[in-house]
């Protein structure tokens, strides 16, 4: 065994003597294993945590011997340890009196035993998970370096977009009709394509409703305030079915109205089929030219 320097042993013996209310010599003897350890029990119910070397005759039941696994791993307050850690605790309580009876002096010391030679077997009753008092605000996130993992795809998509745009511009000629003339109204006069859904709505309803209330109230106010209206914190589509449905309906509605406005409206805003009458306000076929 390890040699403990005399002065350290002396100091801890003094501390032990003071704590247990015994003489220093007694404490020293206990620590060296020459005397049985003194027990000061304040709270007998809790004592079950430790098991002293029981008399040889005592064979602990298998349940009592198996350490921790049966016990719960959740933190348990010490006062309730006996009740909450079901099996082991129960068994231990049953066993204790029998073990104690022959020699109360050998009973479990509550505190750490300083004497290296006294064998104290300890049984794991519960495992309290080490947890910080404060929870860290940020969880570790799986991240990659921006360069090159983000910059490269961005650069490629940028190049692809440039190539697409130049190709499109080389093939498709931007429309240029005859010079602006306020005295000649084309029939029909159409807004830019992104407003044609609105123009289509205008043909159904009163302009106060279709031209103002819908784009201004629905389109702007509700749209901007959407995050403040939708308080559901879930982001997965399966948990926000209404929002998904709402937006998809909006998308479909806007798409259908715009397509009708662009392709299916002819002179006098009457219904027309582009494959029969052609596309109004611009003949798409005239735009396409190869150079």
């Amino acid at each position, binding site marked *: 065994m390890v040699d403990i320097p005399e002065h350290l042993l002396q100091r801890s013996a003094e501390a032990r003597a003071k704590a247990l209310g015994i003489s220093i010599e007694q404490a020293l003897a206990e620590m060296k294993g020459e005397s049985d350890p003194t027990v000061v029990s304040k709270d007998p119910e809790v004592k079950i945590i430790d098991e002293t070397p029981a008399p040889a005759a005592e064979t602990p039941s298998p349940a009592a011997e198996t350490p921790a696994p049966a016990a719960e791993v959740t933190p348990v307050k010490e006062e309730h340890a006996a009740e909450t850690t079901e099996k082991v605790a129960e068994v231990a309580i049953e066993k204790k009196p029998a073990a104690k009876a022959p020699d109360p002096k050998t009973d479990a010391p509550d505190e750490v035993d300083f004497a290296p030679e006294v064998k104290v077997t300890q049984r794991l009753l519960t495992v309290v998970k080490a947890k910080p008092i404060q929870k860290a605000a940020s969880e570790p996130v799986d991240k*990659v370096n921006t*360069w090159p993992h983000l*910059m490269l*795809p961005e650069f490629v998509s940028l190049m692809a977009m440039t190539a697409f745009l130049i190709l499109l*511009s080389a093939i498709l000629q931007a429309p240029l009709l005859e010079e602006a003339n306020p005295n000649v109204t084309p029939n029909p006069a159409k807004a830019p394509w*992104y407003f044609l859904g609105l123009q289509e709505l205008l043909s159904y309803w009163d302009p106060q409703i279709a031209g103002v209330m819908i784009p201004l109230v629905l389109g702007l106010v509700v749209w901007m305030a959407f995050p403040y209206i939708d308080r559901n914190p879930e982001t997965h589509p399966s948990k926000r079915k209404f929002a*998904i449905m709402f937006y998809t309906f909006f998308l479909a509605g806007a798409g259908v109205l715009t397509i009708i406005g662009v392709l299916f409206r002819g002179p006098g805003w009457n219904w027309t089929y582009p494959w029969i009458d052609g596309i109004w306000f611009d003949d798409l076929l005239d735009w396409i030219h190869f150079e």
Partner: protein
Amino acid sequence: MQKLSLRDRIKEVRVTAGDSFRGGKLMSSIFRPGSPFKKGYVDSPRNRSYVVMNNVLYHLHPVKVKRHGVRLSYTLCLGGLSFFLFIVLTITGIWLMFYFRPTELAYVDIQALQTDIAFGSLVRNMHRWGAHLMVLVVFLHMSRVFYHGAYKAPREFNWVIGVILLLLTLLLSFTGYLLPWDQLAIWAVTVGGNMAGYTPVIGAQAKFGLFAGLEATTATLLRFYVLHVLFLPFIIVIFMAVHFWRVRKDGGISGPL
């Protein structure tokens, strides 16, 4: 010392000269630490961080991004492409400004662009199709954000800015629509301006302010021109700056789902 062949000697001189130039005062004054153009660049995590931190063009991004956000299928690059299209439109737009007068001559100028000026037709087409594309891409970007629920806390306010940016994009496109000063332009703007006239209470005033009169004239053309090339780009750049800044302040890309 062993004798080097002529080729090896040239190579040695080249390497030494290159190193002393790249490590010299001029280059180290131009490039910040970690630049691949500096002497002794090695591909290390530290230098990769420097590439982003010390480069003005990459400075929009944080040094590290969430792994799922890098997947092309997550964002389809729509936000980045919106910004890129804005840059393309700025460049082509400035180019077009050299050849365009927002007066009765506007139509003639556009005709000249189409026929006389080198690459005029191509640049005008790029500007026009790029504008349509930008409206589309911004709209798709908004849809992507919506379907990912990316507008939820703490990103609510960035959604609001995003809607403003969409609105500004539409306004930029709409004001640009008039500039060719052809029949398509003037009547599309007339229809759009009349829609603004249906605004309750201030309808007539809104229409008058938009048209600079009672109908689309060359005064409207000048007004739309100034809005298109100066005022609205100025506003949109401010909102874009806040938008990008908030993306980073709100914790980068949203998700994963």
